[in-house]
């Protein structure tokens, strides 16, 4: 048998670390490497997409060189943790570097704020990830790394609760753990036609997990109540019809409903400050600024970018902000900062056809406005049955700080402002 002794390679290595992307973000999951180990990367190439519980973040190369990937796809990395190393002594191959995947068009790369650490060689061997305190067997280590499984989430059936390879396999299949100590007996199965009753399990994305946690948290802590009303959208629709072309021409965006609702909400919030506040311990925090979260769906789940200081923005600026956020949410390009803060949220379930729903609070906020589908319905106006474009609206609120009277009045205020937008102009 032939063995080579490990050569000591003299390299200049630059660490690629998980950047600090926002104060509330502690860790991220490697979503996708654009290169593979050994590839030559150029400075400013987007190296990796990270998924945090708030946003997708891209990290670019600070130096050119050969990349050695340390954290694989699916692995969780903490802020400052080394994800890869770039050997800057490597020279570019003829013809330039080929990224593993073409970079997405409108990337908003986040450059790691920390200066690159340059270590004199030889590089240390890649660190062994150990999410749990118990050392992992070689096969378990390989499998959990390869499949991005947190060892802590695997039920161990080995000696003293150790995780066996079979446990990881069972975990991936989502089934019961392989029973110890006797080897798993052969599966006795009635013959089921293949593909008929299969199920599929996927690890929740960090974003989805965080959404789940927050929703449950909101349900558990706040005293959520929902009040409903309905809005006659005739006037808004008329205004839209009258000005949509001019608006589009002037601002480059369509005049939608959102801007009306945000404007109305800001006015209502000014009138009922508790709705714009929240509970912090034994205090109520009132905000005299109006940062309105707009819930938009993305393929990774619902995200809520925040329109800051909405009270200072024109209808056009509001529409532009909504449009831009929506697009970037779908592309997974929202930054963490853009999704933090927010004193009140507007959620439009109407785009999916919802007629009525009870939105859940976005903690620590105390209220959320739910918009719904506009539907022509017979309504009675001045003793006559007429057909009007109607929308149900819902306000879910934390009853701990918002009284029933306040919440109902708040929603009525929105109704009045949207039904008669002249009030917004006049300020009554």
């Amino acid at each position: 048998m032939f063995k080579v002794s490990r050569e000591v390679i003299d390299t200049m290595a630059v660490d690629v670390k998980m950047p600090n992307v926002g104060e509330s973000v502690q860790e991220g999951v490697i979503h996708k490497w654009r290169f593979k180990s050994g590839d030559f990367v150029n400075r400013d190439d987007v190296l990796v997409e990270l998924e945090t519980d708030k946003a997708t973040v891209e990290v670019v190369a600070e130096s050119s060189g050969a990349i050695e990937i340390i954290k694989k796809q699916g692995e969780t990395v903490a802020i400052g943790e080394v994800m890869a190393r770039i050997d800057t002594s490597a020279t570019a191959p003829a013809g330039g570097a080929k990224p593993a995947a073409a970079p997405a068009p409108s990337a908003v790369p986040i450059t790691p704020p920390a200066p690159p650490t340059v270590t004199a060689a030889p590089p240390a061997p890649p660190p062994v990830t150990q999410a749990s305190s118990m050392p992992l067997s070689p096969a378990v280590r390989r499998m959990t790394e390869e499949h991005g499984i947190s060892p802590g989430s695997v039920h161990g059936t080995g000696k003293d609760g150790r995780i066996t390879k079979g446990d990881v396999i069972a975990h991936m299949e989502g089934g019961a753990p392989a029973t110890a100590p006797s080897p798993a007996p052969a599966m006795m199965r009635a013959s089921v036609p293949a593909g008929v009753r299969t199920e599929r399990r996927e690890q929740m994305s960090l974003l989805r997990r965080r959404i789940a946690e927050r929703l449950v948290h909101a349900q558990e802590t706040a005293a959520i109540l929902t009040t409903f009303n309905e809005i006659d959208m005739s006037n808004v629709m008329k205004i839209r019809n009258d000005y949509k072309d001019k608006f589009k021409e002037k601002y480059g965006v369509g005049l939608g409903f959102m801007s009306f609702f945000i404007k109305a909400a800001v006015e209502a919030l000014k009138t009922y400050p508790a709705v714009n506040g929240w509970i912090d311990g034994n205090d109520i925090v009132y905000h005299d600024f109006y940062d309105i979260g707009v819930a938009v769906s993305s393929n990774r789940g619902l995200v809520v970018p925040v329109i800051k200081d909405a009270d200072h923005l024109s209808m056009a600026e509001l529409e532009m902000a909504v449009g831009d956020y929506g697009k970037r949410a779908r592309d997974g390009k929202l930054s963490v900062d853009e999704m933090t803060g927010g004193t009140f949220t507007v959620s439009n379930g109407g785009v999916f056809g919802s007629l009525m729903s009870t939105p859940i609070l976005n903690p620590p906020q105390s209220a959320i406005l739910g918009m719904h589908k506009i539907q022509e319905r017979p309504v009675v106006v001045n003793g006559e049955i007429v057909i009007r474009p109607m929308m149900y609206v819902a306000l879910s609120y934390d009853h701990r700080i918002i009284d029933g009277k306040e919440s109902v009045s708040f929603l009525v205020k929105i109704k009045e402002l949207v039904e008669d937008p002249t009030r917004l102009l006049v300020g009554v």
Partner: protein
Amino acid sequence: MAAYDVIFVGGGPAGYTGAIRAGQLGLNVACVEFRGSLGGTCLNVGCIPSKALLQSSEFFHHAQHKSAEHGIKYQKVEFDVAQMMKRKDGIVSSLTKGIEGLFKKNKVTYIKGKGTFVNANTIKVATMDGSVEEHTAKSFVISTGSTPIELKAIAPFDGKDIVSSTEALCFEKVPEHLVVIGAGVIGLEMGSVWLRLGSKVTVIEALDRVLPPMDAAVSAEMKKILEKQGMEFMLSTKLTKAEKSGKKVKVTAERDGKPVTIDCDKVLVAVGRRAYTDGLGLEAVGLAPRKDGKLDVNHHYQTAVANIFAVGDVIDGPMLAHKADEEGVAVAEIIAGKPGHVNYEAIPNVVYTWPEVASVGMNEEEAKAKGLNYKTGKVPFMANGRARAFGETDGFVKIIADAKTDRIIGAHIIGPNASELIAELVIGVEFSASAEDIGRSSHAHPTLAEVMKEAALAVDKRSLNF
């Protein structure tokens, strides 16, 4: 008031190890043994003396047949049976004395004599000097072991020419022709000793294979290798009679319904061992052994009498010294109120022929019979650098793993130093290791152990050097 917390009856691996453990746990403990020395079958007439003779005879065999290949030539290679026996006896006595030292160190009282139950709390001991004393204890552990099975009707032991392993460990001179009844562990080991020293050895076995409990591939390889060394096998052959006829012993057997006769010098009956409870007075406490002589116990090693336990060869399970001592430790811990446990799936089984055979867990036939879905990886020593340098390339390593979970369910080695190599895979089984775990663990190069790594990789069809 009972004088002792616990008395172990029998000072073999089960009894002496358990007594030491009980002493460590602070129990007031005694051990009764009538052999005259501690260590039981294993140290006195089993494991240790047999290994001493196997080693000596293997050295002789090596000098005779294997050294020339290494360029080493001896003018004349001789051996001295008396010296071999003296050396063996020296090892045995120093080890058994060593246990007496351990007893003192761990405050175990050594009661010399044969123990017989009077009642569930009292035992009467006929001491070596002829007196009888009684001892009381809260608990008793029966660790009286086993004794060779005698075929009384067709081949009664005469202590000289028709013998058990005990006598075969002490032949004064090399028998010209030794017939071994039974191709099990003891038969093949003792047969090997005398074969190497020049005996013609014929092994008669009723089944159609050697080493019946081993993996079939191992059995077949073992037979082939021993035949190459000159051992003769008569498989599927049933002994019908062995009797003295003049200076010789006449052995008659039946094969395919036809009688065969062999005239030989000695017959070793190695058809197994039976649990030994003779003279123990079980009836006084209301216990009776099963038909096969074994005692029934629950998983706490408790007999039907709650304060009387039993461990070692006298209960079910493989008749092995390390199984006996694991149980001795476990029962001591249980009696001391602690959780004692033996993992029967991770007990190795070794045959000290050359090459050696070692296994842990299930063999392939068992896996198949259980309907398990499994994969195997098998790699020969021939492919291993160290085995080549050693000049010992016979044999292979075979690992059986669950097809789905990759967990090792059995490992079988036939090859040089298999007895030592198996330890790694025992730890693996104990820790529910997968074949991949072994395959991904670094093994020093060049070592025989690398064959195990290769076999583990071969389970996944990705061995690197084979």
